């Protein structure tokens, strides 16, 4: 599904060039929940954004469902993201002035489908957000916010979910709930690439990798 072959990403920093990814090779297949663990600044988020078609690698090859997203035009890459990828972030990144219902439906504007409303309703019910559907993010709990973000990520039935510290701001109960939903998604045939610094989170994954200074260690 997602494949990295010797992918390198170098940033130009004030103290010279920094390799956030150093010849990284990995692959995540459908039905797989891969957790990449590592300390802050080791290149986890860069790995995730590169996988999401948002950050062009400096070197190496990356493919998403067999296709290199970086050969596509920005417009086509946006469509590819909307159709195939769901993002979940530590900070939730919900749009503050939209209701829970509207946040969940937002990806349908990028990739419209006839069943978007029905799918959103299913997700609202599945994540226990029925009573909060008309509320804006500021009016709901952090756990509900992350569930909303997860529902948004799942709206277009993506082939992969890229999750960046999805439980970083959650208590243990809510963290387990979110990870449970991700596992359920994998069990239904999806695949998840999750990056975290929390080793406990990685226990929910089917496979985990360690990352250190831009390099992967089994």
């Amino acid at each position, binding site marked *: 599904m997602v494949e990295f072959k010797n992918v390198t990403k170098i940033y130009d920093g004030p103290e010279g060039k920094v390799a956030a990814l150093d010849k990284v090779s990995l692959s995540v297949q459908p039905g797989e929940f891969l957790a990449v663990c590592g300390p802050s600044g080791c290149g986890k988020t860069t790995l995730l*954004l590169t996988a*999401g078609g*948002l950050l062009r690698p400096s070197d190496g090859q990356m493919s998403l469902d067999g296709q290199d997203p970086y050969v596509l035009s920005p417009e086509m890459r*946006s469509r590819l*993201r909307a159709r195939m990828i769901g993002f979940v972030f530590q900070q939730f*990144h919900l749009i503050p*002035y939209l209701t829970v219902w509207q946040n969940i439906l*937002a*990806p349908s504007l990028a990739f419209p489908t006839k069943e978007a409303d029905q799918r959103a309703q299913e997700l609202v019910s599945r994540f226990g957000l029925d009573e909060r559907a008309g509320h804006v993010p500021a009016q709901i709990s952090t756990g509900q916010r992350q569930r909303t973000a997860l529902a948004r990520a799942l709206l277009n039935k993506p082939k992969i979910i890229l999750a960046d510290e999805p439980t970083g701001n959650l208590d243990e109960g809510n963290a387990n709930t979110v990870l449970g939903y991700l596992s359920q998604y994998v069990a239904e045939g999806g695949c998840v690439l999750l990056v975290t610094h929390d080793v406990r989170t990685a226990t929910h994954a089917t496979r985990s990798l360690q990352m250190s200074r831009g390099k992967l260690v089994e």
Partner: protein
Amino acid sequence: MKIWHILAREILHRWLSFTLGTFAVIVAVGSLTGAVTLLKLHDLQTQKILNEKEEETEKKMAVLKDEMRKATLKLKFNLLILPKQQNIRDLHMKGYPSEYMPEEYVTRLANSGIIVVRHFLPSLQQRIKWPEKNRTITLVGARGEVPNLHKDPRKPLVQPVPLGTIVLGYGLHQSLGLEVGDKVKLLGKEFTVHKCYEERGSKDDFTAWIHLSQAQELLDKEGLINAILALECICQGAEGLLEKVREEIRQILPGTQVIEMGTKAIARAEARAKVGQEAKASVERERRHRTQMRSEREFFAAVLVPLVMVACAVWVGLLAFNNVRDRKAEIGIQRAIGFRARQIMFLFLSKFFIMGLLGAFLGIFAGLGLGRWLGLVLEDDMEGIATAGELFIPGLFLLALIIAPVLTVISGWLPTMVAIRQDPADVLREE
């Protein structure tokens, strides 16, 4: 859900920023509309003032014209048409003309269409001995006025002397003890005294007037006259009057000459005409004053309005930049979940368009109100001319509704470009 749901929710969420932006457009459109309204008010007020002044001048001129008519009669403001061969020196020496011309001349003049003279008074004058009374008098034969057939008929200035009657100057009727109705003989013919004049202090005091035909008979001058008095010559204005009359009469009656009767009256007529001219000049001065005032206001508006508009455009641009900064994370996540650049652009530019449209609509009315208020402060007596209906300019309204949104979108264009060029990876990494 449609994209405009996001647009509407965002406007409501950041209502202060939207209100401030709309306010900037209201100020820009309002200042333009206000300036145009003020100038329109100025024009209406100018028209009103000039109309009033012109009306006043016309009234003044009518009064002057009437006074002139009276003055012309009273002061003998007349012209004397004489045979060409008449020696003017002799005329002044003798006090009456000594040469003759056909009486038919007066008819020719009356039918000629001459425009500067209203009445003609043909006369035959001669100094004679009044044998029955042993007096030397000036005998004037007059048949009354011959009206100019090409002018509006007016009441005659001089009433004719009826046949068989005589009119006597003050010196004559006083010294002879004659009164109206008395019978008196002149050159063997009997006349009834028709009128006795008050003292005039001129040769008229020793003049007797009889009907022209009887004078011609008594003086043996059948079909002849020696003067035509042209009356009410002021009708075309006193300036250059004599020359105009002379020129016209010369063309109609080549065998005559024209002299002026009553310089004092002409001076007065000219003075009166000058008052009329002064009234007209005052209208012209007012017109110039208003035009200058308009130019000053136009200049002020031409400087101020663009400045205000540029300041407002900058203000909208700054608000837009601030909006982009506030929405950095939001734009990042929208790009991450697949929003295309044109969708982000639509969200921003539509907001500026709505801001411009709403601001233009409100700005028009704010400007109308402001312009009207300023007009009332700056101008006197605007009663009846400052109605909103009169001041509303549909063309300007339409123009503002088109131009303001376009300019607002242009003001927000650069920040929008910044928003869509923002790298979502940078934003998400920072967050």
